[in-house]
């Protein structure tokens, strides 16, 4: 058997450690973690409160701001409308929607703005991305520092519309 301990002259002992297996394992670990690592964007959420059987306008005294999203048959956005006013269907329309809602809310952060509710009425086929964009435009915006500022807390959905061609 190999001599494991070298006794120095002054009783001082040194243990020669074989580092190789540890370093092997440690490198394996590093490689494993590097390969499984996935940098992902953060997720956030929009909270909505929708009890069953709640009709339009029952949850608060104020009538909700109605946002209508119309879709093309392929699920892309045809127009956004707030009330009866049509806003178009591009990026600018969402910016306009944001401004319109802010106009209606008045000053964000007041007690009044806490009660305001936005009702989203979307066609069946519309891609969910547009609904999320509309919810974003209706609920808040980024301030100068890039921090989100919310001016509407309550969102709800209008009863779902029938699928196109389903009668």
């Amino acid at each position: 058997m190999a001599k494991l301990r070298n006794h120095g002259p002054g009783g001082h002992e040194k243990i020669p450690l074989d580092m190789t297996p540890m370093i092997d394992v440690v490198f394996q670990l590093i490689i494993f973690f590097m390969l499984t690592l996935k940098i992902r964007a953060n997720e956030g959420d929009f909270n909505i409160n929708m009890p069953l059987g709640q009709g339009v306008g029952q949850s608060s005294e104020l009538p909700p701001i109605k946002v209508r999203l119309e879709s093309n048959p392929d699920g892309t956005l045809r127009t956004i409308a707030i009330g009866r006013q049509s806003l178009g269907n591009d990026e600018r329309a969402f910016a306009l929607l944001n401004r319109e809602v802010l106009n209606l809310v008045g000053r964000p952060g007041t007690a009044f703005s806490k009660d305001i509710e936005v009702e989203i009425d979307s066609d069946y086929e519309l891609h969910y991305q547009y609904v999320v964009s509309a919810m974003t435009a209706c609920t808040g915006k980024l301030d100068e520092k890039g921090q989100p500022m919310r001016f509407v807390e309550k969102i709800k959905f209008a009863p779902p519309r029938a699928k196109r061609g389903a009668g």
Partner: protein
Amino acid sequence: MADSGSVDIDMTPMIDIVFQLITFFMVVINFDAADTDERVRMAVSELARPPKVKPAGELVLQMGFERGRAQGTAKEGPFLFYSGERIPVTSFETVFKPMLEREFQIEKIKGNLEADGKTKTPVVIRADAECPTGDVQKLIQICQQAGYEKFSLKAMQPEAK
């Protein structure tokens, strides 16, 4: 110190760095299968921020597409991916509703119900950006019928520029 021909290398700094690296990767890694589901490509919203307080319990529902292996190939769906099953929208009523009712019973047994018989547990909906909105609404309706009334619609932060 060294024997003839062998050189003593001081391993300490290297091991320090290597352990730092391991610790970094361990902390950053995301093992949560729900968060890394490739079938759900979520909608992007600049207001999306992770919730400050995580609720004690939540019911996560994933809705997405089964896409071909190569990008751009035909996709099937949308499906609800729930407890290892792939449920098409047409069988929400028949397949998913009983599952959800069972889930609600478990809530009841656990004592998570309010006085009015409703649960506080939020339903987290992670839906693909291309899902038809009507299907998402249908999902919400089924959950409402089962007794859930708090919903959290998930969106992703845009990639940092």
